[in-house]
């Protein structure tokens, strides 16, 4: 089995402003993201030899991408819950690595706010609802399934309710601080620990600021053969590893599952570190974008990705290790907390920030001298989810 490392480069990226984009339809968001990427790469739409479009709710089939007016090239629509955007990247990158095309577009989009509803709807397929709503018409909410992680984590490590709430709050405070520096983010408000702790509860222990918002957005990447990359730009970004790990309902069915880690994250990280040759992620990864849909997930992801030792997230949160000033800045663009979560777009939005960081173009959010950057998504929930990790770097080798 060969590693994907250094076979594919990213030569252009685009990302819309995320938020309640009442002004924009799916087609506007797609055009905004794609054309920023074309311009960034210095290519034209006609240069695309294939495209992958990721969306969960905002379109079906290749026709989702029709607004770009691409001329009869192969287009594939992909869906993999919250990892959908990253899945589009995988499709495009593997095609380039396989040599079936030299240059391809990966784009993700989600237009959630047109529904007029608060929240994201569950799976539309009857008989495919993990909470059984197709059978009995009720069940727990998405935040609840992530609240389970918090309740258990606190119990497991003997963290009392107040201390636990404060730990989660610090994650939200950090991401809001980062997001305040990012004009593309949905939310720009700086919050305090007290505000986050006292915010209304959504699903104990998760309060309002522990839950990401619902927004519209799109992000795009243009990938090409690594050996061609410098023809397009002097600072291409190289894919070092891409991995996905899918659960098989172990979390909801096996009492052995402990709710203080997520296997999908761990297995995806193990694969991607092997591909990228990363031995000590805490030291070797310069910055990361992780799936902070709910603060409990970010808390556990620190440990699942090997950034903190088991049970050690608390110490790292309290020391500020993952802030812009820390040794491993995480969610430097504001994360899902500030961008919201247009499902199909999020993975590529995270990659956009890591791409800019590695190119030294992240402005006030710029981390010092980065070499390797990581993105992480978790779709679904623990034991019934999709863990996805991508590592990119600004140098070959």
């Amino acid at each position, binding site marked *: 089995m060969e590693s994907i490392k250094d076979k594919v480069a990213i030569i252009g990226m685009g990302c819309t402003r995320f938020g309640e984009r009442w002004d924009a339809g799916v087609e506007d968001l797609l055009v905004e993201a794609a054309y920023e990427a074309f311009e960034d790469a210095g290519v034209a739409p006609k240069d695309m030899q294939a495209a992958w479009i990721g969306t969960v709710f905002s379109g079906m089939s290749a026709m989702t991408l029709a607004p770009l007016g691409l001329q009869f090239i192969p287009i594939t629509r992909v869906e993999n819950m919250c990892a959908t955007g990253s899945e589009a990247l995988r499709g495009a990158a593997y095609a380039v690595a396989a040599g079936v095309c030299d240059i391809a577009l990966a784009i993700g989009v989600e237009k959630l706010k047109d529904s007029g*509803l608060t929240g994201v709807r569950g799976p539309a397929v*009857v008989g495919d609802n993990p909470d*059984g709503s197709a*059978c*009995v018409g009720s069940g727990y*909410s998405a*935040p*609840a399934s992530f609240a389970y992680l918090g*309740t258990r984590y606190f119990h497991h490590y003997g963290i009392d309710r107040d201390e636990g709430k404060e730990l989660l709050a610090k994650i939200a405070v950090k991401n809001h601080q980062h997001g305040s520096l990012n004009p593309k983010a949905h939310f720009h408000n700086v919050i305090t620990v007290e505000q986050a702790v006292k915010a209304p509860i959504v699903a104990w222990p998760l309060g309002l600021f522990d839950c990401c918002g619902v927004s519209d957005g799109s992000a795009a990447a243009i990938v090409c053969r690594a050996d061609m990359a410098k023809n397009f730009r002097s600072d291409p970004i190289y894919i070092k590893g891409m991995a996905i790990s899918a659960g098989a309902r172990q979390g909801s069915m096996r*009492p052995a599952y402990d709710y203080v880690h997520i296997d999908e994250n761990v297995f995806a990280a193990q694969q991607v570190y092997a591909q990228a040759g990363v031995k000590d992620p805490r030291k070797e990864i310069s910055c990361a974008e992780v799936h902070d849909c709910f603060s409990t997930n970010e808390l556990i992801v620190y440990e699942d990705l090997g950034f903190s030792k088991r049970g050690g997230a608390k110490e790292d949160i309290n020391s500020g290790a993952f802030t812009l000033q820390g040794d491993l800045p995480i969610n430097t663009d504001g994360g899902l907390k500030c961008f919201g979560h247009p499902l199909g777009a999020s993975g590529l939005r995270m990659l956009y920030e890591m791409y800019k960081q590695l190119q030294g173009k992240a402005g006030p959010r710029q981390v010092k001298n980065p070499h390797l950057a990581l993105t992480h998504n978790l779709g679904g929930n623990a034991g019934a989810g999709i863990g996805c990790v991508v590592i990119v770097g600004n140098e070959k080798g």
Partner: protein
Amino acid sequence: MIGITSVGAYIPRYRLSGEEIGRMWRAKGGKGEKAVAGYDEDTITMAVAAALECMKGQGAPEALYHATTTAPYKEKQAASIVAAACDLDKTCRTADFTNSLRAGTTALLAAVDAVKAGASSALVTASDCRLGAPMGRFESALGDGACAIMIGSTDLLASIEGSYSVFSEFTDVWRTSKDNFLRAGEGRFIEEMGYIPAMREILSDTIKKYSLTPADFAKVVFYAPDGRGHASIAKGLGFDKAQVQDPMYDVIGNTGAAAALIMLIAALEEASPGDRILFAGYGDGCDALILRVEKRPSGRTMKDRLAAKVNIDYGSYLLWKELLEVEPPNLPERPAPSLASRWRMHKTISSLYGFKCRKCGTPQLHPLGQTVRVCVECQAKDDFESYKFSDKTGKLFTYAVDILQPTKNPPGLNGVIDFDGGGRMICELTDYDLKKAQVGMPVQMTFRKMSQEKGIVNYFWKAKPIE
């Protein structure tokens, strides 16, 4: 001999007091309180709870007769839903006895007939949730409750020595198919010309028929529309106060078709071997029975069942009884349950059947809508034996206090249950005290109403704390 072999009762934990009703209407509230079914309960779920208690240690009944005047469906049998939740064999004869307050005692007599005709045992469930209109005379009087009585021929709690029934075409209380609330004739007329003479006659005629006197009975147990009617019958018949069974109307209210049977169970729980009990139900006539006590039932008593109670406010009552239209949450709608998916999962939905892997021995529960064909533990395919979870206790492994969970008793509580003996389930909890929710809390399973969509009542199992 034929008689009662086991009893069970279920009184929902919620109470609405006369005082709270009075506060609502700025009137002098009545004394006492009434039992109110939770928002996720109905006559079927309450009957299941009573039946499961009654069936403990008993053989499977060959008939299940379910009595109620408030079945959730007009067309679709309630008894078969109760029987399926109780995991009875498909050859069990099921029938609904309905449309009369006398349905409870009539079902009991039918069960006696079934055993006489050769059935090893027959189970009777009686359950009612009648509604009095807000501000009306029945609002505080009608309560919710259920009970179950097993009729058999061996190891009796009480033998049945005789019975006597009359019917009467008398219009005192009624609901047409379109009425949500009880209707009734003028108060003194229906009492003086209806209930009182009918009940007096059945009691005295039954005593006469069997050549007995009031002194031959340790207890007399009979239905009455309310406490006042009950007292006036007791006075006129030559029974001592001590002989008359308390109807519990000021504690749980008048539970309709279940009321007389619930009183009978309470009487049996306090009786001594050899006691004779005169028992009568009323509604469109009367049924009377003479019972001879053999031994007291063991297990929970009425006092235990009434111990854990929670008083609710009038707003909750309106909401739970669906007497108030409220703004739906601005959340995405969940897909309507699929009849086909429910049918494929019926063993899991009805009696919480999962399976045990023959290869690795791990008990597992099918996630709803997703039948498991491959063992989650060892990946063996289709090598399972049936394993029931509804009768297993468990512990709360982790949980969320969920503001977004669809519940009429917010906030919701849901979590991960690890069953004693193996197996895990993510499910809603019900009848909880939020302050006591904690990791490791012991729970048991309870059959509840999850939602009602497109006119289908969707039942499933929730976890509830073991009190």
